[in-house]
């Protein structure tokens, strides 16, 4: 961080700092969710689209429902892993 920016930050009031920290937290949460969506899209594209030749740019109905199911089952998987790990403690 350049000294100019650092000097500027000292101009922030306490209310501004609080505000900024809240915004930062929200942005960070948004980023986490976005990254999960990227990861899920990658996984579900491989499951639902890859392996067959791509003939047009529209998702077929079966590909659409495959994508939805893929996300739901991935989350189920995560839940059951956590549940099992908790029971093993």
């Amino acid at each position: 961080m350049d000294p100019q920016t650092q000097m500027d930050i000292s101009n922030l009031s306490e209310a501004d700092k609080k505000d900024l920290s809240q915004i930062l937290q929200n942005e960070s949460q948004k980023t986490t969710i976005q990254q999960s969506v990227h990861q899920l899209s990658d996984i579900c594209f491989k499951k639902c689209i890859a392996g067959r030749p791509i003939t047009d740019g529209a998702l077929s109905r079966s590909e659409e429902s495959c994508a939805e199911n893929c996300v739901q089952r991935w989350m189920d998987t995560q839940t059951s892993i956590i549940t099992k790990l908790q029971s093993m403690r």
Partner: protein
Amino acid sequence: MSLFGSGSASPVPKSGSDVKAGIVQQLQQESAMNNARLLIEKINENCFDACIPAPGSTMSSQESGCISSCMDKYIQLWNISSKTYISRLGQEQKRMA
């Protein structure tokens, strides 16, 4: 400090709220950049796999057509993933409450 050096010669912000707005703007810009970079990376990887099984000396029109369709498909799938994931997160949160 900016990752993608927004070299615009904007006047140096003075007041606290100017500084705040500047930080928030830069944060959001970098976040959007990062989001786009990830999307491009994933599309590149998946559509290269799907459309170019045997790279030739040039890209055929069939291959570039496939890339374009694949990209459309990927973006639609991304939107479905996003919608499904976020609604599931909401359900889980309600269940926990």
